[in-house]
């Protein structure tokens, strides 16, 4: 795999953090524009709109006075939580629910939902049940196939497992997930 392809695949399988960045930038610029308005009013010697900047600084310097401790504490906890959210978004890898299909010419990424739909179709054909009786959950390293058999009809778990594993092997995913088949204890009737 060539170097630009590897970089492209790394970018496609990880989040760019663009939406949160845009929100943070909008909030920051709104705060800055408000500050700009108040400081310009002050510099031009006009009356303030909401609060005079020196007045605001003085109030902040006297802080526990002038508010109730509960309000102050709640605001602090809120800021702390927002900070933790931003920090986590900045530091965590942010893997997206996607897998890479190895190919020698093109770089291929597949949403996990597409893989799940294809595996569900394969499991449904192997088990001989309807679409509603199969549910597949795909995560980075595991594939969970939940099948609800039709009441009175015996299903072979190993056959479903083999069919799903064969389909997964044909996909050649990276990272390769392992398959787990769950047959429900109760069956459905009237399908």
């Amino acid at each position, binding site marked *: 795999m*060539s170097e*630009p*392809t590897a*970089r*492209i695949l790394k*970018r*496609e399988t990880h989040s*760019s953090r*663009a939406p*949160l*960045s845009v929100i*943070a*930038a909008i909030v*920051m*610029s709104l705060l*800055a*524009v408000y*500050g*700009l308005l108040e*400081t310009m009013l002050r*510099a*031009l*010697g006009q009356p303030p709109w909401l609060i005079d*900047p*020196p007045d605001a600084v003085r109030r902040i*310097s*006297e*802080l*526990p006075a002038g508010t109730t*401790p509960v309000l*102050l*504490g709640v605001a*602090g*906890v809120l*800021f*702390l*939580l*927002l*900070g933790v*959210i*931003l*920090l986590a*978004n*900045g*530091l965590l890898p942010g893997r997206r629910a996607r897998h890479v*299909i190895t*190919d020698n*010419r*093109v*770089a*291929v*990424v*597949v*949403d996990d939902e*597409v893989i799940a*739909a*294809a595996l569900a*179709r394969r499991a449904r054909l192997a088990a001989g049940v309807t679409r509603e009786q199969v549910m597949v959950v795909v995560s980075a390293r595991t594939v969970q196939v939940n099948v609800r058999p039709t009441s009175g009809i015996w299903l072979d778990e190993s056959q479903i497992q083999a069919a799903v594993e064969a*389909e997964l092997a044909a*996909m050649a995913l990276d990272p390769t997930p392992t398959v787990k088949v769950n047959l429900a204890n109760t069956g459905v009737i009237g399908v």
Partner: protein
Amino acid sequence: MNGTPRGFNRFMLVLLGLVLMVLGAALVALAAVPPFARWWQDWAGRQVLQLGGLAAQTRMGSGAGSWIWLIVAAALLVVVIVMVSWIANQGKGRTNVLFDRTGSADDDGAAGRVVLSCAVAEQALKSALVERSDLLSASVTSYDFRGEPCVRVRVLPRQGVAPHQVAGDVGALVEAMDALLGVEVPVLVSIGSGARVRFTKAERVR
């Protein structure tokens, strides 16, 4: 694969997160720890007095405020500009030149220049993909990835279509396009699902 500044996004989020955490912790400490609150009032009170003195020294004539405010306003303006350019940089990086080469004497002696537009690759791939019945939609866009043009193919297959077969078919199309154009560009195939896929019938017969 677009030009979103991912490193800068993460740096700014970490920075803002740390600032908010320090601010929040300080507010909680002010509310809950009386010695810290006393120290803060003492320290901040002295700073406010100094600032007041500075503002009185830097007054611009009678009636007007201090020019300190102009400096603060300029700093805030810089913040606004940085934020707007940060937003403007998200998701940019589209290009429309796939290949560009000037003929030279030591090549084949022909004068002139060959420019291939990205529309060539985009329309060739798109027209080959939209006629397939197992794909609900296909879109092809070109990006400039670190000075090199790259083609991104986004396809939305119907539910239940095997992704590796779609990938193999697109790969074969791309190889045919390589042979046709004589240039190989990096190609990304992104196979996804959207709301449109979820509310339509699954593919039963292929």
